[in-house]
């Protein structure tokens, strides 16, 4: 699905990531860990083309992201669900409209029943008509997750998706992600939450990657 070949990224103040090689195969489940500032968010941005590597090659479905024109990048993003750490929404649209936005962008109409089911899936049925500024941090994260999966993406990239959630809701969302993965969605989650990783490993064959010293490593069995 997504492959990194000797990828490095440099914000201009020295290399943040160097010599990274990875192949995210279809249907795989990965966690990405590492200390704060290690470059986890940067790694995810490289995955969906918000950032381009300063050296090396990132390919999406065997196509070099560097060689893609803007429309192709947009099309690629329609098949990638992204949950950002800061969960941004369009504040003048209701939560339901925000969740359905990827469909509007792709020129498709939202099925109301499906939308309600999806909002129920993330526990936000009652907040469907609420405007994003009135939502709590946890509600926003669940809303962002619903928006990320509404297009049935091939890949789901999530940056600390349970950072604002309590244990119960975190596990509930994990169950949903595991379900998605079983349906074929490739999943990559950047997180510090070791309990979440352990819970996931009990349900799926999740691999854990760690960024240390600007490099990507497969984490050991201690997790």
């Amino acid at each position, binding site marked *: 699905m997504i492959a990194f070949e000797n990828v490095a990224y440099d914000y201009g103040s020295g290399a943040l990531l160097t010599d990274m090689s990875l192949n995210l195969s279809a249907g795989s489940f990965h966690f990405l860990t590492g200390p704060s500032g290690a470059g986890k968010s940067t790694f995810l941005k490289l995955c*969906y*083309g*918000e*950032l*381009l590597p300063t050296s090396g090659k990132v390919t999406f479905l065997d196509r070099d992201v560097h060689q893609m024109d*803007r*429309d192709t990048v*947009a*099309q*690629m*993003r*329609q*098949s*990638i669900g*992204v949950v*950002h750490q800061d969960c*941004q*929404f*369009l*504040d*003048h*649209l209701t939560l339901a*409209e925000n969740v359905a*936005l*990827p469909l*509007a*962008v*792709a*020129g498709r109409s939202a099925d109301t029943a499906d939308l309600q089911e999806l909002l129920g899936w993330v526990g936000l049925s009652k907040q469907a008509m609420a405007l994003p500024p009135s939502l709590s941090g946890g509600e926003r994260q669940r809303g962002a997750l619903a*928006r990320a999966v509404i297009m049935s993406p091939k890949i789901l990239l999530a940056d600390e998706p349970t950072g604002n959630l309590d244990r119960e809701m975190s596990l509930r969302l994990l169950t949903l992600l595991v379900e998605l993965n079983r349906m074929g969605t490739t999943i990559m989650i950047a997180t510090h939450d070791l309990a979440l990783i352990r819970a996931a490993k009990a349900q799926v064959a999740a691999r854990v990657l760690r960024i240390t010293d600007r490099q990507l490593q497969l984490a050991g069995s201690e997790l």
Partner: protein
Amino acid sequence: MKAILSAVSGVISGDTGADRVVPPSGPAVWLTVITSAAMAFLAVLALAMSLATVRLADRWTASLSGRATIHISAAPEVLPAQTQLVLDILAVTPGVSAARAIDPAETKALLAPWFEPDFLIDGLPIPQLIDIEEAAEGFDTEGLSLRLAAEVPGAALDDHQRWRKPLVRAAKRIGVFADLSLVLIAGAMAAMITLAAQAALATNAKVIGVLHLIGARDAFITRAFVRRYTLRTTVGAAFGTFVGMIAIATMPGAAEEGGFLTGLGFSGWQWIWPLAIPVIAAIIAFWATRMATLRTLRRVQ
């Protein structure tokens, strides 16, 4: 070309998805509407001035289309001979296509309105008038005056119409300024819309970020902003044009004796011309917003 046609079609037909993504209000909303209304109002006035100066210059040019008068003041017994002498001179003067001695009765009829009804015009020493029709190339006024002074002392060439030539030039120059004003107004409108669109794009950076994240193409985002600003500009320009046309309609009607000021308006089919202003404003808004949006989006990965 296909992308532009698609964008034009999007502006006309609308796109429910794209229309909703830009927040409905913002600081630039009224700025755009009011400024485009003001620009359209000024454009109507400039257009009226341009058309009025063209009409004025045409009228003055027509009245200059080669007529002059010679008047001969002499004793009655020598007047016929002098008249014939002047006609002979005119017959061989280059640039004179025709010359006619005006009948004294005709001259008296011209003078009659200026006197009391019972005034005896016959008692006045009325000069003989000779009407000259110039050829297209015109004649040498100074040369003819000198020759008349030498050969027919009582004859004087009256080229009174020639003072209008500088006025025609001035009218044409004012017309050029009016046309230039229209161009400047169009440029100012484009600059204003570009600034308003850029301000809106900067204000809505978060919206653009979210849309990019979920895979919105540049065309989708551009369509949302272009439609919003094109409609606002068109509404403002239509209002400004309407008010401008009312202002022009309330001007006093064009009258021969009123000269330039009373002629500042539209006549007949010219009233259709201002209706093009909102259309042109819409085209300007479409291009200015489209260019500003695409330029901004290209800076974002």
